[in-house]
Structures are given as C-alpha cells and as structure tokens.
C-alpha cells in the first residue's frame, strides 16, 4: 500500500482550488495535488464539485498522455483524500518564460506557438477540453528544445462539441491578452498552427469567431 500521508511534503503552490506539494514517491520526485474544502461553498455542492474534478482530472491527464501529448504521468489517485500523485516536471511555466524573454522574437514566437498548437490540436482531437487554458498552465521542460507540457486538468472534461473546444481557445485568448498585453500576433500564430495540426481544427476556429462575437456582445448593458 502506498503511504497516503507523505512524510516530507513541501508546499510549492497554493492555487485557487488545490495545494500542490512535492514529495519523493517510490524513489522519484513527485507532485501531490490535494483539493481542499471550500468553506464558502454549500457542503453538498462542494463535495460534488471536488470529487467530480479529481476523477475528471486524472482521467483526462491519462487519456491525452496516451495520445502523445506531454503531460505529467499519473502515479496514484486517492479519491477519499481528494488527492492525485503525479510526475514532477522539471521546468518553468510558459507565463514566466514569456515574461522573462519578452519581447519574443519572431522565430521563437512561431516555434512556441506551434508547440502549443500541436498539443492543443491533439487534445481537442481526443475530445478533451482543458477548461482553464492559461500560460500558467503550460510548462516547458528544462533542457534544449524543451517539450511543452500541459498541466492542471482540474477543469477539464470530455466533449465532442465544437463549441466547447472554441470556448477553450477563447479562454486562452483572454488569458493571453490579460496577462501578456500585445500578444495578438502570438495568439494568431497559435491559431494558424492549430488549423494545420488539428484534424477538426477548421470548424473550431470558425466557431471561435461566434464565441468572440458573443463575448463582445456582453458589453451591451450598464
């Protein structure tokens, strides 16, 4: 039986929904993601959301890793403790990477955009929607020609709907423009590569136009 009470867990991040620790797990560095109770939420609603998201997250991580997208390997799921044990990724977030190298040069921008688009394309072709695409939820492994790793599938779900995939991209667009102003060309490069690399890409991009218009419509009233 694996030890569910790790002896030397170090808190590395307190996110909005979970605490992330590093621990040694069977001889290698691992990440423990523990979803905690939200005091503000009705207990019934809280329990429903938490257990649903733990299962969903583990399932989606596993499925897209099998499809060839780089994500942390799942080691163990402890549903009672709302905890997932997974691989520790040695690298930095795309957010920090962009902030550190800003402004991105053209060549580098295109390479990064292509990597992101390829991962998203495969993921969407598997009918998996990430649900919280931000540059904080993408990492680059340490080393030369680093592989792009998608992380935090806490809000992910399975859907065949073009609509859901388009909203996924829309969420990324919004996150990009709010975190990294003046990244229009970067997002456009992601979309171009997405169209090329994803089998179902074209209708998703078409739908994205609709989602954007609807988003813009939200300016209507005071």
């Amino acid at each position, binding site marked *: 039986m694996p030890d569910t009470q790790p002896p030397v867990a170090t808190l590395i991040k307190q996110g909005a929904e979970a605490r992330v620790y590093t621990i040694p797990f069977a001889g290698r560095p691992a990440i423990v993601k523990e979803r905690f109770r939200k005091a*503000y939420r009705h207990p019934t*609603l809280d329990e*429903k959301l938490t257990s649903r998201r733990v299962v969903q997250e583990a399932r989606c991580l596993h499925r897209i890793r099998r499809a060839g997208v780089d994500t942390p390997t799942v080691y163990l799921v402890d549903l009672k403790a709302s905890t997932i044990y997974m691989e520790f990724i040695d690298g930095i977030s795309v957010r920090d990477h962009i902030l550190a190298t800003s402004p991105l040069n053209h060549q580098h921008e295109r390479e990064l955009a292509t990597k992101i688009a390829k991962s998203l394309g495969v993921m969407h072709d598997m009918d998996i929607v990430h649900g919280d695409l931000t540059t904080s939820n993408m990492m680059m492994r340490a080393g030369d020609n680093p592989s792009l790793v998608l992380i935090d599938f806490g*809000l992910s779900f399975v859907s065949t709907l073009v609509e859901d995939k388009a909203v996924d991209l829309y969420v990324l667009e*919004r996150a990009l423009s*709010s975190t990294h102003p003046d990244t229009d060309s970067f997002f456009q490069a992601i979309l171009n590569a997405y169209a090329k690399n994803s089998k179902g890409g074209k209708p998703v991009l078409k739908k994205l136009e609709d*989602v954007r218009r609807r988003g813009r419509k939200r300016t209507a009233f005071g």
Partner: protein
Amino acid sequence: MIAIGFEGSANKIGVGIMEHSDDGKVSVLANPRHTYITPPGQGFLPKDTAAHHRAHVIPLTLEALAEANLTPKDIDVICFTKGPGMGGPLTTVAIAARTLSLLWGVPLVAVNHCVGHIEMGRMITGADNPVVLYVSGGNTQVIAFSEQRYRIFGEAIDIAVGNCLDRFARILGLPNEPFPGWQIEQRAKKGTQLIDLPYTVKGMDVSFSGILSHMESLVRDHDPYLPDAPYTADDLCFSLQETVFAMLVEITERALAHIGATEVLIVGGVGCNERLQGMMGEMATQRGAHLFATDERFCIDNGLMIAQAGLLAHKHGVVTDLTDTWCTQRYRTDEVLVTWR
C-alpha cells in the same frame, strides 16, 4: 474641485456631487437617486425608462445642489455616463448634462459606467489595487488593473448574473421593489434544500443562461407555491444563489491566484447581496486576502460614481468636447485608458 455626476444607463437615475480638496481630502456632498419600478413579472423597457429619467433628472439635480448647499457656480466639471447601457436612457441623461454644461459654462467629461463602479468602490472602501468582481443586471466581470487599463480576466459569456436573478424573480412573480435581487435574497434565507443545478465555469468565464432555463423548467414541472411541491420557492431562490455565487467566488479566486493579488472588491448592484459578500469573505479569509464591499448606496448605480471617475480623469486633463458627447450601448471596461493611476 467639485464635480457633479449624472448616471442613467439602466432603470436608476442618479445625480451625485463630489469634492476633491487640494489637501487630498475627498468628500461626498450629495447622492440622490430615483428608481423606475415596474409591476411584478415585468422588466423595464428602454422607452419607458427614458421617460422616467426625463421626469426626474431636473428635480434630482435641484435636490443634489440643495443637499450639497451649492449653486451651479460652484461646479467645476459635469460628468455623465457615456455607456455601456440602454440607448434611450443614456441619451436622455446625456442631453441633460449637455444642456447644463452650456447653461453653466462648465466642461463635460464622458465616463465609462463600469470604470465608475470600480473607482467608486476603491474610493469608498480604500482598497488600493484589488481584483474587482463587478456584478450587476447588465455586467458580470472579474477585473484587474494592468498596464493602465482595467482588464477583464473573466466574464459571463451570455447573460449577466443580475439578469439571471431578475428574470427568475419575474418567473416567480416577485416584486421589483426595492429590487428583484433583494426579494430573492430574503427568500433564500428561508430555503433549506439544495437542488442540483448546472454549474458552468469555463476557465475564468461563467455562463448563466442554462441555469436560468433549468430553473424555468423546475417551476414549470412543479408549481413551487403549491403545498405538495417537492421544493418551495424559497428552496429555489436558495439553490440559485448558492450555485451562481459559488461560480462567481470561484472565478474571482482563480483571478486572485493567477495574479497573486491580496485584495478583493465587489461592486455593482448584485454586490450588495450579503450572502455573496459572506461567501467572498470566507474565500478571502481562507487564502489570507482581504474583502472590500460597499452597501446599496454605492453598489447600485448612482451619480456619485460617475462624478468620482470623471473627476479623476478631469484632474488629469480629460475634457470631452461637446461634439464628442455621444453615448454608446457598447463600451468595454478595457477600452478606457486609465491616466490617473
């Protein structure tokens, strides 16, 4: 400097007067308001709302001047809502502002309604650089300040949360006085049963139209006012509040975590709901952040918020030329270049 602000983008018309002294002191001198109340089960139509505003704009202006003990000569700048909002009501109030500007010989400043809410909230609560949850009948936005703009991190992708609550109040036939959300809040306090509702958070965005349709079908299936109904109207109000507020707190928390902020400010009409404030407060406590909220005098649309945002801009050289004093129904929060921060 003294500013008078005119607000009338929805069913409230308000006139506020605000003074910024040279020593940095900020004083609220007057903030009267009048609300257009429709019968239970009905919303407010633009044409009727504009007529209401036309009838009240002059009496309110006189009331504000009298309360502040000022004459038109004391006013340095006239601020009015440029948008977003309903076309008819907006232009009605803009005409009043333009007329007074010509009569009194005072410059005009056009103000974004959403920025008015944010600046008002910051001024009243003293919050310095908060993540703002702006929730009203027309808007649902999670906002943070970055590179001279109020940037929208998350928002409702269909109807606003206040619109969802208002329309559900209409379905239940609740009175629109003092406002529909207040009626739902009172009923929710008596609800005991949590009904399973759709929960739709997409990243930092939320969606409410599906929840509203679901609520509609619940009422259609079982009249909640009948004694043998499986749920009461109170239960429905309770469940609706618990679900939509949990969604709002969740996206606000996500924005806090994303930028590493430690202050939260709630503004807009739905912001005076005490259950929402309570939930947000618990979230803030759990992560060592601080909640700032105001009451209905400042949360709900009012003239003072327009005076405050307009005066801040005016002190940094903004004047709106008479030919540019048009209104727009669509005016995003992030379109405004914030020169005063």
